[in-house]
């Protein structure tokens, strides 16, 4: 790169990056600001980013009035369980879909795609009735099963793409060196598939953590409320909103997702396969 382009281009690139970061981050910053404002300040025509009076009570109100900690624990249980199950089921299925060219493969892939076109509202009543027959409505176990079934097609599609991206040559090379099928899977495929597994897990976790409608329909016991259900109770009739408490609760609700993402995103590396095979 010539010096002039570097001199101009790099600052411009950083400027664009800063603008993008502000664009992404501002709603969260404003949410934090809202969570710290009094009802009077929330209803002014000239709002400020920095609250004039810091209303920490919004956080205690949010935690107290809707029992957010308990709801958060329920959400965490459901999200972790469905993430583990989705990953466990999707891994071998994705490998089979990507590697074995049977007649079932196009049918299975077609079905996965078709399953994505049904809107939630269309399937929720049949799903409710089926779960009721098994005594699984109004239970977190039922909710985990629903999230597993609902997340699996996309997770499968995502993961089989990653598997397809791993050159067969690597597996064949390992076989030539005497590795059995299991050894090939554990020592060759699994490490190379790790970014895909992480992406799948992140998707499953965030989906389950944020899901609202299934939980609304399936859960009736307040003790089993998940976080989105608890947050929805800050909205009342005719558009009435407990805005400060809702903002505080929403802010708290984003923390586990952020932690989970920051913990796993280091594994979302690419380029592991660069130069793995020639030609």
């Amino acid at each position, binding site marked *: 790169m010539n010096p002039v382009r570097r001199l101009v281009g790099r600052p411009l690139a950083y400027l664009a990056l800063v603008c993008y970061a502000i664009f992404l981050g501002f709603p969260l910053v404003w949410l934090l600001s809202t969570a710290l404002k009094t009802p009077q300040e929330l209803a002014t*025509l000239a709002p400020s980013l920095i609250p004039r009076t810091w209303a920490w009570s919004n956080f205690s109100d949010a935690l107290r009035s809707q029992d957010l900690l308990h709801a958060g624990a329920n959400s965490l249980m459901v999200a972790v369980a469905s993430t583990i199950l989705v990953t466990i089921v999707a891994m071998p299925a994705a490998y089979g879909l990507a590697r074995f060219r049977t007649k079932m493969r196009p049918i299975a892939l077609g079905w996965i795609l078709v399953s994505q076109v049904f809107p939630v509202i269309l399937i*929720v009543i049949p799903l409710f009735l089926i779960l009721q027959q098994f005594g699984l409505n109004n239970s977190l176990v039922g909710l985990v099963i629903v999230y597993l079934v609902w997340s699996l097609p996309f997770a499968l599609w995502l993961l089989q793409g990653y598997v397809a991206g791993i050159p067969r040559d690597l597996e064949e090379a390992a076989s030539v060196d005497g590795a059995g099928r299991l050894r090939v899977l554990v020592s060759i495929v699994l490490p190379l598939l790790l970014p895909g597994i992480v992406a799948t897990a992140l998707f499953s976790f965030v989906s389950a953590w944020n899901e609202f409608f299934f939980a609304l329909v399936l859960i009736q016991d307040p003790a089993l409320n998940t976080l*989105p259900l608890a947050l*929805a109770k800050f909205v009342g009739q005719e558009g009435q909103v407990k805005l400060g408490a809702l903002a505080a609760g929403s802010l708290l609700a984003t923390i586990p997702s952020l932690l989970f993402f920051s913990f796993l995103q280091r594994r979302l590396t690419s380029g592991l396969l660069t130069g793995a095979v020639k030609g």
Partner: protein
Amino acid sequence: MTRRSSVFAAALAAAALVLGGCATAGGGGSSSSAPATTSAGGASSSAPAETSSGAASSAAASSGMSSSGGSSSGASGAQSSAAGEQSSGAAVSQPAEKVTLRFQSLAFQDTTIAATKKIVDDWNAANPNIQVELVQGSWDNVHDQLVTQFQGKTAPDIIHDAADDILGFAQQGYLADLSPYLSPDVKSGVSEGVWKSVTVDGKVIAAPTLLQTYVVFANSKALSDAGVTAPTGDTMSWDDFQALAKQLTKSGQYGLGWSLKSPTATMMNLALNFGGTYFDTSSDPAKITVGDKEMQVPTRIHAMAYDDKSIDPTSMTQSGSDVLPAFYAGKFAMMVSGDYVAQQISEQAPSGFTWQVLPPLAGDTADQAADPQTLSVSADCKNPKEATEFINYFMQAANLAAVAQGDWLIPATQSARDEVLKETGGKNGWDQILASGEHLTNAPFLTVAQYPQWKDQIATPAFQQYLADQIDKDALVSQLSDGWSQVAGG
């Protein structure tokens, strides 16, 4: 799985709501000398909160289930007493085997939630064999929830909802007929017009609890600054209201702010002021009439906006309580809204802001549509008698007064309205709010099956265009009438 994230959506919605509040700019608050005004500065921290919590504790104190005890028979056991009198006990005759009833409440304000919990606790203490389990629901999604619960036969035994939503379920046979079990006091305590709003095919499918009316809020300082004496009397005529709005309009300030982004409910409710009913339900499908009576309110609002220029045009594009920040800031002197907004004003208004509620709007009458909050019993409930006995207890004057004050809504029974008036002394606008409740009556549109579809697809866009001055009155009439033919095939 859907990638829409509810938590993030809630977060962003919260941010958007706040950001939305930045759209207009504004001035300052005020203080007042008018005797009937309410100081929000004090109110925000004390008055209304004290009023509400006082009501809750009063309900608790007066519920007195232990004193009555015994076994007053059947539904009459939980009767309310005469107007203003403290409620009798909660205890009713107990079934041989223990019954547990699930009660889904949609109470939203903290004081209302506390009052509801107190009512349930008192009932449970007095009725060991009829236990009520309180489940907290949400107004935001109660309809979707009930759809699946009714289908799956897992609906709560006692259901809190609103008449305009619950009537559809009643027409599908999901709700029990309460009339055999309602106590005589409850039956006689609610006006006939309101009972009609919860009656389907001769069956009473709900007990009406709280009602909302459209009232005129006024910035007291703006009135006094303009040298205007606040209207008094039982009602305020539309002509006087329009003249007042014009009088209060001056440079930099409009006379009126009115959130009319979703105008249909407002038009349908206030049309009754002039006897406009829109629908004739004597035939099936119902027939629509959009005549002079129905057009009075839209044309008057249009005239205020475009001839008098006394309505803040920004406010007409806003919804619900979005107009409140501009009201606090003195951008307009009056606003029309549901009476429940008084609760928000008392909580949010800046220190020193003084306000009052003007007499109910009246054309030929001050009638408005009764669309009450309701308590129903699921048709699948195995103990409808016991469930209705709890409703009878909930409807007792002191109990209803407590929940009404928390939400700043009007109790459906006269005795509870008297109780609220006694406890509040008519302050904080309660006198006029309660007065407006005297004029609530049944409105045909609430029982028209295709009304929600007509409202969303035809009426709301048509009214929006008319209020934006994009179509004239004749075009509005035509769109409303022809649109009904499309929707109902009539």
